[in-house]
């Protein structure tokens, strides 16, 4: 265990989050059991006020979670200097068995909290707050994911062993059969890349015909293929090295931190594409607005990654 200032900051905020989210959890359960918008009891009046606090707390946590996610990656990046053998965040994250799960949980929670907030906005727009029970139940479930994330994070930082040698991104994301992600390498590059573009085209079609279901489905596909194709294909053009497949090194300043922009565009785009569309269907809201947002960011992502390939080809006249 190392206690660098960054880790202390993250752990401290985790403690804070745990405290506040437990309050929100208890209140959510209360809201779920006893909310009755027709009732005129004192309890109901109290609940109306408490539902405010839940909104406040979740807004607070979400606002901090977004920068904290980036800060977490940055912390892992700096830790890679201490941990023997790790060259970037990938190595640090994978130095414990559940590192990848921690990362997945973090991402999932961002989506869940974002979903809750979208629902909340739709809810308070209406005079009757019709979705209070739904969003309380939703948070009641999301809370467990959140706790899991925090517990994993604490375990992660306490079990970091600075004298253990870990494998760096070079072996983690390579085609060698032992690595955890090697099954991805069974597919051909051109297949993945064409699937990636195909899902984008499907998304465009979904947007044209204004079909929420198609759009949602294409976004799920797009998210998956975007990440896989980034690891397998596009990252090599960013690094200009045919053997370097790492989704984390993109974040380093050697590559102008382009990863932050790529991931921001991708996650924003798919977030609005998935959660926005779900919410819009559930609450019969403006589906088009969510789709337009989503399409904008997704296109931005596609343009960015494609630009790397095209620019490389124009400069060097060959493909990698």
């Amino acid at each position, binding site marked *: 265990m190392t206690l660098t200032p960054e880790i202390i900051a993250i752990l401290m905020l985790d403690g804070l989050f745990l405290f506040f989210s437990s309050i929100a959890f208890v209140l959510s359960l209360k809201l779920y059991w006893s909310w009755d918008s*027709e009732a*005129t*009891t004192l309890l109901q009046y109290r609940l109306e*006020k408490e539902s405010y606090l839940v909104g406040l707390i979740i807004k607070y946590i979400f606002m901090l979670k977004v920068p904290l996610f980036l800060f977490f990656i940055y912390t892992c990046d700096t830790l890679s200097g201490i941990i023997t053998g790790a060259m970037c965040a990938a190595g640090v994250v994978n130095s414990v068995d559940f590192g990848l799960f921690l990362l997945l949980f973090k991402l999932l929670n961002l989506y869940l909290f974002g979903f809750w907030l979208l629902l909340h906005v739709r809810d*308070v727009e209406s*005079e*009757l707050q019709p979705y209070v029970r739904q969003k309380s139940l939703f948070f009641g479930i999301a809370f467990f994911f959140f706790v899991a994330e925090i517990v994993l994070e604490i375990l992660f930082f306490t079990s970091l062993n600075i004298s253990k040698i870990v494998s760096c991104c070079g072996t983690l994301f390579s085609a060698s059969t032992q690595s955890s992600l090697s099954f991805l390498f069974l597919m051909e590059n051109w297949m993945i890349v064409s699937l990636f573009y195909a899902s984008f085209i499907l998304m465009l079609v979904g947007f044209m015909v204004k079909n929420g279901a198609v759009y949602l489905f294409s976004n799920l596909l797009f998210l998956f293929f975007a990440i896989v194709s980034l690891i397998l294909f596009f990252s090599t053009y960013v690094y200009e090295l045919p053997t370097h497949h790492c989704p984390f090194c993109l974040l380093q300043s050697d590559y102008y931190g382009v990863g932050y922009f790529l991931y921001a565009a991708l996650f924003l785009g798919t977030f609005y594409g998935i959660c926005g569309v779900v919410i819009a269907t559930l609450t019969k809201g403006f589906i088009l607005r969510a789709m337009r947002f989503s399409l904008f960011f997704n296109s931005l992502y596609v343009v960015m990654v494609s630009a790397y390939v095209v620019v490389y080809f124009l400069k060097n006249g060959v493909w990698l």
Partner: protein
Amino acid sequence: MIVLKNVCKCYETEAQRIDALRDISLHVKAGECVILKGASGSGKSTILSLIAGLSKPTTGDVVVDGKRISKLMEPFSAHFRRENIGVIFQRYHLIATLSVRDNIALPLIPENLSAQVMEKRVEEVMELCAISHKSSALCRHLSGGEQQRVAIARALVNEPKIIIADEPTANLDAVLSEQFIETMYDLKKSGVTLLIATHDSQFFNLLFVDQQIELKNGVMLS
């Protein structure tokens, strides 16, 4: 305009249950002037706060201007209050450390109007209530009459349809009470609905009052 249907309101504390209002039904038409009279603690203020949406009834319905105030969620009831209701408190409740202008502008702050519109509205009501000459004085330096005019100006600044006054003349001498009644008369002429809770006998035999409701221990007498 204002309808109260079988409204009960009770406050529950751990030791006891206090019925502030019992089965009140009331109907006020637009432009009427209603006097609520009764000793203090008889439930006058509770009725006013129910109508303003500041508290909610235990049972029954409150409908104001077609909106079911009793079931409106907080942000909407606040919005409704801001648009339709002006309040004059007992002892005025001005914020002593703010200037007259700022006190009058308070109800407009959440609206986030442009500076010109805001300025224009505040100027208008200050003109109307003859307080323009003191616009930048702090409220704690004002005399009782001036404070009263500021309070009225503040109640009028959002151009309300309903004015609620809670014991407005309780701390005034006879001359000032006279002035207040005159202002109320002017307001009624301009079509505003007035609800005044008072036990000041000066109000009881006014010609422009449409209804007088007497309360005792939360029950309507007449």
